[in-house]
């Protein structure tokens, strides 16, 4: 056969078949696996177990706050609960769930057969699980009561004499090392193991966000590791880094913590942005609008987001010019974020939009994150922040950004990629009911918390007086939280039942754009027998088009079309 261009010779589409090796079975094969897909699934299962724990903690918090002057929980229990809730949701649910999805999908999306360092990958998983066990082990003695921020000197031995803070420190160390190794692994994988033809401008947007997130982790994790090490030596080895009575500085802790803590927000939401950028084009049946603008916005958010940490500290004694600097810097983050939201809306504009559950969660993400972003501008304006800081307005704001920006996007990703991971579809009907409860419950719970904060309710209080309608706001919020919990529970039921009873999905149930849909579902151990050459951001579209073209040519020539 003669060829005129290189295009027609190279990428004859081949649907791969998982014939390479029989898949090992048994629990030992899971414990010892270095397969990125199995590690990804174990990350996901473990993270959802922690989601249940963190969710129960949240419901207990809401029960205590349901009515004014409640005596259901003691202050000690309450403080321990919100410390565990925040820490669990960030370090034991969101971070590992993102790690799980990234582990599973990044190699598939870039056409690689595994991560660059499979054994390190397994080490990451087990360190994360060790961190969770160490932290929850403190339930057996006395959990930390200093909040997920563990501000010194409250977290020093003089004021937190029990070992709960130490188990929190070890959780940060263990999950931090896990994330750091995982980030290095992802960075090396993405930069070195892409399919032929996948240049920087053809990398799927989810992979771009994971690359950016890996860089943020590599920059910020050593700082928090150092900070908690200083706290550990303060607590046990006689140093005074954060002890003001011996020349230490509590503000040092805050700067170190938030130098990690603020990039952490983007570490949580950037992967969500990536997931949304994958799902919206598929169900709008359109290419992503402004690929380069979205990539630039991702990098811009990461760069600016690393330089604005002190907007968490507008109420401590800071020089005036720093207040101005961190206010204007934080405003700047809004620009690339706004660019992204408009690009997402214009991806759907003039499309043919379908609404499976994954798309519903994506839309829920857009609406929720929009409000979270706008309240961010209130908080960035430091005189306004002087009123709103550390109130329920802030609690509402960060739940809108993190649940809106990260959790809803991850739920969308779960419904979107579940067929790829299991070979079965999730139940759409149950999924839609679950979505309704989750989104509705979320808005009922958290919208009213803005008002609670504006009416003078600080965060982290175990009781409040019934003034300024606080009783009403909190009752609404508590009712909403149980609706939200019901929504999540329905999704868990959906996952469990669909594993057995879901319809067979086939390799590409959504007519996706990216390479993970090129392999069978679930993918074989080696992912791809043949890695296709990538010619655009949407390699699967190219492949489908080429199949159509060849079928047509074949038919016209009177040759039997490929079966």
């Amino acid at each position, binding site marked *: 056969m003669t060829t005129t261009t290189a295009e027609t010779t190279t990428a004859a589409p081949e649907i791969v078949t998982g014939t390479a090796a029989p898949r090992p079975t048994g629990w030992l094969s899971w414990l010892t696996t270095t397969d990125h897909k199995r590690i990804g699934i174990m990350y996901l299962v473990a993270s959802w177990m922690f989601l249940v724990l963190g969710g129960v903690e949240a419901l207990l918090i809401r029960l205590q706050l349901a009515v004014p002057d409640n005596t259901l929980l003691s202050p000690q229990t309450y403080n321990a609960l919100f410390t565990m809730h925040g820490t669990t949701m960030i370090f034991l649910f969101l971070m590992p769930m993102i790690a799980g999805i990234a582990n599973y999908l990044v190699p598939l999306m870039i056409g690689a057969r595994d991560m660059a360092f499979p054994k390190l990958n397994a080490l990451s998983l087990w360190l994360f699980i060790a961190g969770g066990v160490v932290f929850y082990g403190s339930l057996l003695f006395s959990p930390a009561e200093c909040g997920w921020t563990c501000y010194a000197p409250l977290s020093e031995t003089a004021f937190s004499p029990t070992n709960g803070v130490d188990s929190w420190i070890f959780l940060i160390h263990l999950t931090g090392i896990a994330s750091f190794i995982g980030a290095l692994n992802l960075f090396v994988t993405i930069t070195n193991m892409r399919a032929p033809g996948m240049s920087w401008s053809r990398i799927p947007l989810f992979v771009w966000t994971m690359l950016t997130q890996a860089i943020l982790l590599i920059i910020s994790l050593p700082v928090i590791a150092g900070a908690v090490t200083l706290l550990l030596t303060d607590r046990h080895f006689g140093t005074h880094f954060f002890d003001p009575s011996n020349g230490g500085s509590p503000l040092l802790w805050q700067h170190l913590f938030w130098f990690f803590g603020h990039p952490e927000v983007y570490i949580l939401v950037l992967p969500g942005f990536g997931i949304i950028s994958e799902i919206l084009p598929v169900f709008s049946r359109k290419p992503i609008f402004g690929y380069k*603008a979205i990539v630039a916005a991702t990098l811009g958010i990461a760069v600016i987001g690393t330089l604005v940490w002190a907007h968490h500290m507008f109420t401590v*004694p800071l020089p005036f010019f720093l207040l101005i600097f961190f206010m204007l810097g934080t405003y700047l983050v809004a620009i690339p974020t*706004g*660019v992204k939201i408009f690009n997402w*809306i214009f991806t759907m504009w003039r499309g043919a939009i379908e609404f499976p559950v994954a798309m519903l969660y994506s839309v829920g993400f857009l609406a929720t994150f929009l409000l979270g972003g706008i309240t961010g501008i209130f908080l960035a304006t430091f*005189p306004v922040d*002087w*009123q709103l800081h550390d109130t329920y307005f802030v609690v509402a704001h960060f739940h809108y950004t993190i649940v809106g920006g990260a959790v809803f996007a991850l739920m969308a990703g779960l419904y979107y990629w579940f067929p790829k991971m299991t070979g079965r579809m999730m139940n759409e009907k149950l999924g839609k009911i679950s979505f309704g409860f989750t989104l509705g419950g979320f808005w009922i719970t958290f919208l009213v918390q803005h008002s609670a904060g504006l009416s003078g309710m600080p965060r982290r209080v175990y009781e409040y007086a019934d003034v300024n309608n606080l009783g009403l706001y909190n009752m609404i919020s508590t009712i909403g939280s149980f609706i939200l919990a019901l929504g999540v529970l329905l999704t868990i039921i959906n996952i469990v039942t669909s594993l057995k009873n879901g319809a067979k999905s086939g390799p590409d149930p959504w007519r996706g754009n990216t390479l993970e849909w090129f392999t069978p579902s679930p993918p074989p151990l080696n992912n791809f027998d043949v890695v296709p050459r990538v010619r655009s951001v949407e390699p699967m579209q190219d492949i489908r088009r080429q199949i159509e073209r060849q079928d047509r040519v074949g038919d016209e020539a009177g040759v039997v079309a490929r079966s």
Partner: protein
Amino acid sequence: MTSRPAKQTFLFAFILVAALLIPASAAMAGVIAPESGGGTPNAEGIRSLYLLIFGIGCVVFFGVGGLLIYTLVRFRSRRGSVAVQAHGNTRLEVAWTVGAAMILVLISVVTFLKLDQIKNPPNSSADGLSTPMNVAFNTGPAKPALPPNGHSLNIDVNGQQYIWRYTYADTDTNNLNNVFAYEQMVVPTDTTVSLTIRAQDVQHSWWIPSLGGKFDAVPGYTNYTWFKITKPGTYNGQCAELCGRGHATMIASVKAVSPAEFKVWYAAQKLAITSAERQAAAARNALVAKDAAVLKAAAPSAAAPMAAPARPAPVAMADGKTLFVAGVPATGALACGSCHTLSAAGTNGAVGPNLDVVLKTWNAAMIREAILYPNKMIAKGYAANIMPANYGATLTKAQLDVLVKYVDDSVHGK
């Protein structure tokens, strides 16, 4: 076919939103904006700045949200609908980048315009309390914002687990004789009140919503704020930074009264504090006298069997214990034992920490430091300024050496 239910859904959603918004706008101010009401310019400034950003935020939220809903409804997949394969539009990208930037420039400009009102205190009004030039409590490198004429009523706000202590500045430099109060601060109206905010143990945050923003009390640092109340009344708030198990109950309130009433309150408070201190001093002196009597009764009986010619007891050696139990009444050095427990001396005072316990790991140099400068290292559970800080003046160097050696030996069982 599909357009009618969609329209109905749309209408229904609209009515639902309207139904939610109308009672919201009619209800209390705390629903959509921070509290104010004391008439202090900083809180009013923050509130109006908030409302402006709220207005812009509403336009953006309903504008972008409306565009989102329109897109979802208008371009949902129907039979025969075709997706337009557009990859982007540079002009649009530039447009919304610039648009977003312009909104932020607008907010920045308004913030800078409002900043003077929020940040800088005005002079007290003519009918306010006439206050002397500030004798500030400030210790940090940062300076408080003062009114143009430099006159304000300065109050030191000290956060402690779990109560606020307020110390009113006066014209002398001795901070131990000042008027103070706990939990409720009484201030005159129409008077600029400047606050010096500090913390004694962990971080706290000073916040009275109606009187402006919150300012953290960070141990080792000094923070500042101010207010100038025009309407008499009581304004409530509470600690806004997690400070431990009692955080929720660490409440604060500011009671604004007319300058005349304030003067009455201030004088009464001063009188009450002075008389309470006098009573305490009398009780202390009684304790000292009692201890001295006990010692006097004990000493001769111990010396009697010796039957040697009366000789003054060797002051240097014998009197570590005496110094500890009786102090030196002549110079005003109070007895350690009346406040501290020390098993070797047989004292069981409970005002200060138990020395058998807290000094276990200390050496002689640290003990000397703690006697001379008691506020440098405060034992857990005890407040500063309880132990007299005058031992450097009331004990001679020899007496101090003896006392330190005695305490050191006693707690280490020598």
